[in-house]
C-alpha cells in the first residue's frame, strides 16, 4: 500500500514525505496555507507557503510572517514531492493543495465552493487517488439557490429599507463574504439605491482585495457616511459588531445576515436577525458529492463540519471514507476573532 501523503499530526494535517503541514493550528517549520481565514492561517510558524492571490490578504492577517507564494498551478518540488496550489473558489487566493509523490496524488481541498464568485478564481476539479474534503455544510438540507438570486433578494431588501428610511445593516464575514456581496451588488446594478458602506474591520481587507486586482465598487467607511445618506445606506458589518456601541449611530436600522447558516429557520432565529440570506462560500451537499465524484478518489478523508454524516453516507455508497479530527472552526467562528487593522 502506498504511503500516506496527508495524515493527522498534533499540529494539524501533515505531509510526511514533503515535511510540511497544511493549515496547522500550532506553530510548525513549514505551513502551506489554503486560505487566510483565521482558523486556517494561524500565526507563529517559521515559513508559510500560499497562493500569490492570497498574499495581500495573508500579510494583513499575519503581519511580519515569512510568506513564500506560488501562482495557481505552478509546481514546487520538495524532497521529491511535487506540490501545487489550485483554485478552491472559497475566497480570494483560496487553494486546494495537490501533492504528488511516486505516482500517487492526494488533494486537500481546504474550504471550497462550486458557485460563481466574481472575487476569486473558480474551483478547479482535480483528479486524485485520495481527497481530503471539508464538510461544513455536509447535510442534504444545504442546497444553495443561485447566488445571483440571493443577491437580488438582498438588493430588494435594501430598496425596501431605503424607501422606509432605515439603514440596511448586513452582517457577514469580513474576509470573503463582504467583498463578494459588494462585487455582486455592483454586477446586479443595485448600487443606485444608496451608498455602500462597511465597518472599519473590513477596510484593510477591501484594500487588500483591490491591491490584488479584484474589481470592487466604491465602499464608504461607515463612520464617514453623511447623515443624510445613513437611511439609504447598506452597511456591511462583521457579526462581532452586533450589539456594539458602534451600531448606535445608525438609529432604527434593519438587520440582515448573509451566511449558509441562514438556510434554516433555526439558524436565522439563533442569530436574532430580522432577515437571513443563505449565501455561502462553502460547497453545498450536491456540490460536495459531485466534487468527490469528480476527483475519482478511491479514498476520501473528511474534515471539519458534518464529517460523521458525510463519512457514513460515503461508506454506504461504497467509498473508503474516514473522518479527520481537525481543529478548524465551523463557519462563523473565524471572523468573530479580532482582525488585524480592525476598528
Amino acid at each position: 500500500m502506498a504511503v500516506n501523503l496527508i495524515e493527522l499530526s498534533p499540529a494539524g494535517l501533515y505531509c510526511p514525505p514533503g515535511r510540511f503541514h497544511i493549515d496547522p493550528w500550532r506553530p510548525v517549520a513549514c505551513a502551506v496555507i489554503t486560505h487566510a481565514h483565521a482558523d486556517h492561517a494561524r500565526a507563529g510558524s517559521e515559513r508559510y507557503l500560499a497562493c500569490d492571490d492570497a498574499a495581500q490578504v495573508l500579510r494583513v492577517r499575519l503581519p511580519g510572517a515569512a510568506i513564500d507564494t506560488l501562482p495557481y498551478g505552478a509546481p514546487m518540488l520538495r524532497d521529491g514531492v511535487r506540490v501545487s496550489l489550485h483554485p478552491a473558489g472559497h475566497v480570494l487566493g483560496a487553494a486546494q493543495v495537490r501533492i504528488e509523490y511516486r505516482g500517487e496524488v492526494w488533494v486537500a481541498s481546504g474550504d471550497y465552493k462550486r458557485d460563481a464568485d466574481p472575487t476569486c478564481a473558480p474551483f478547479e476539479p482535480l483528479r486524485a487517488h485520495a481527497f481530503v474534503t471539508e464538510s461544513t455544510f455536509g447535510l442534504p438540507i444545504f442546497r444553495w439557490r443561485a447566488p445571483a438570486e440571493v443577491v437580488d433578494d438582498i438588493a430588494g431588501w435594501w430598496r425596501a429599507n431605503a424607501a422606509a428610511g432605515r439603514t440596511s445593516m448586513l452582517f457577514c464575514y469580513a474576509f470573503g463574504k463582504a467583498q463578494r456581496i459588494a462585487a455582486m451588488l455592483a454586477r446586479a446594478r443595485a448600487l443606485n439605491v444608496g451608498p455602500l458602506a462597511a465597518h472599519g474591520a473590513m477596510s484593510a481587507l477591501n484594500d487588500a482585495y483591490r491591491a490584488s486586482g479584484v474589481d470592487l465598487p466604491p465602499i464608504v467607511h461607515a463612520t464617514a457616511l453623511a447623515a443624510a445618506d445613513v437611511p439609504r445606506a447598506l452597511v456591511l458589518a462583521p457579526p462581532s459588531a452586533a450589539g456594539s456601541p458602534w451600531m448606535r449611530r445608525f438609529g432604527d436600522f434593519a438587520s440582515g445576515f448573509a451566511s449558509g447558516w441562514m438556510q434554516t429557520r433555526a439558524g436565522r432565529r439563533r442569530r436574532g436577525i430580522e432577515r437571513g440570506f443563505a449565501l455561502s462560500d462553502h460547497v453545498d451537499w450536491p456540490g460536495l458529492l459531485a466534487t468527490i465524484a469528480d476527483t475519482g478518489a478511491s479514498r476520501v478523508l473528511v474534515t471539519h463540519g458534518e464529517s460523521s454524516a458525510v463519512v457514513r453516507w460515503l461508506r454506504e455508497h461504497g467509498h473508503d471514507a474516514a473522518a479527520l479530527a481537525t481543529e478548524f472552526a465551523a463557519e462563523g467562528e473565524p471572523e468573530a476573532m479580532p482582525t488585524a487593522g480592525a476598528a
Partner: protein
Amino acid sequence: MEAFARLHRTLEAERDDARIAAIGAYVRDAPPDDAALAVSLLKGQRPRRILPAAVMRDAAMRAAGIARWLFDACKTQVGDVAETVALVVPSASRTTLHGLAWWSERIASLATVDAGAAATRLVEDWDSLSTDARIVYAKLVSGTYRSPVSPALVDRALAPNFSVPVDPRPPFADASLRVDAVLVYAEPAAPKGFALGAFTFALWDERGGARTLTPIARIDDVAEHERSALEAIVRRTTVERFGPVRRVTPTLVCELAFEAVEASGRRKSGWRLRAPRVVRVRDDASVDDAATLADLGKYAR
C-alpha cells in the same frame, strides 16, 4: 401559494409596520378565495391533519434518495419535520401559478387516496414548489401550520378598507388558546448566538392567599420582532443572574398562544402548556392585568 409563502416568511421576520403592509398587499393582490383562506390561517385557524408526518417524511426520503438516519440528522439540525422535508427534496423542476386556495383543496384531497398514491402526489407537488412554499404545504398537510402573527395584527392590517369575503373553510378547527403572562426570566441561546434564547413567563398565583408570580412556560419560539422587544426589556430590567439565567423585574406582559393545558404534578404551577409561543407584546397591559393560574385552569380539559 408562492405569494402566501413569501408573506409567511415576511411575517416571521419583519416588524409590525412591515407585517401590516405585507398582509395588506397580499390581500389586495390575491384572488378573493386565496385572500379569505390566508386571513383565516393568519387569524389562528388551525388546519386539520391530512396525513401523518411519517408518510411525508418517507416520501421526502425517497425523493431525496436518503436513508432514515440521514433524514434524522437533518431534522436535528432543522428542528422541524415540515421544514426538513422542504429542504431535503431536490429543487423543483417546474413552477405553477396556482394560489393558496387551489393548493388547499389539492392537499385536502390527499386524504381520499391510499398511502402509496398520496406519497406519489406529495413528490409530484414538491417538484413544482419553492422551499418556502413547500414548508407551508407540508405544514398544511401535517396540520401543523401556525400563524406567525396575532389576530389583532391581522385586524389592523385589514382595517382600512377590506372585509373578508368568505367564511373560514371547513378543514379548519378551533383557534389556539391565549393567555396574558408576565416575563420573569431570560437565558441566552446557543453559545455562538448573540440573541437571547428562551424566555420564562409567569401567571398570578393566588392559591396561598398572597398574590405571587409563578412560572408557567419557558418559550424559545419567539418571532424576531417580539424577540427584540423582549431582549430590550431584559437588558433594562435584569436584577440578578444565576449562571446563564437572568431574573428580570416583572414589567412586561405578553400574549401567549398554546394548543392545550394539562395538569402536571411536577410543576409548581400545577399546569403544563402544550406548544406555547409568544404572539404579541402587550404594551397596553400592566403586570396586574396578567391572568391567574385559576384563569388558566378554565382551559383545562
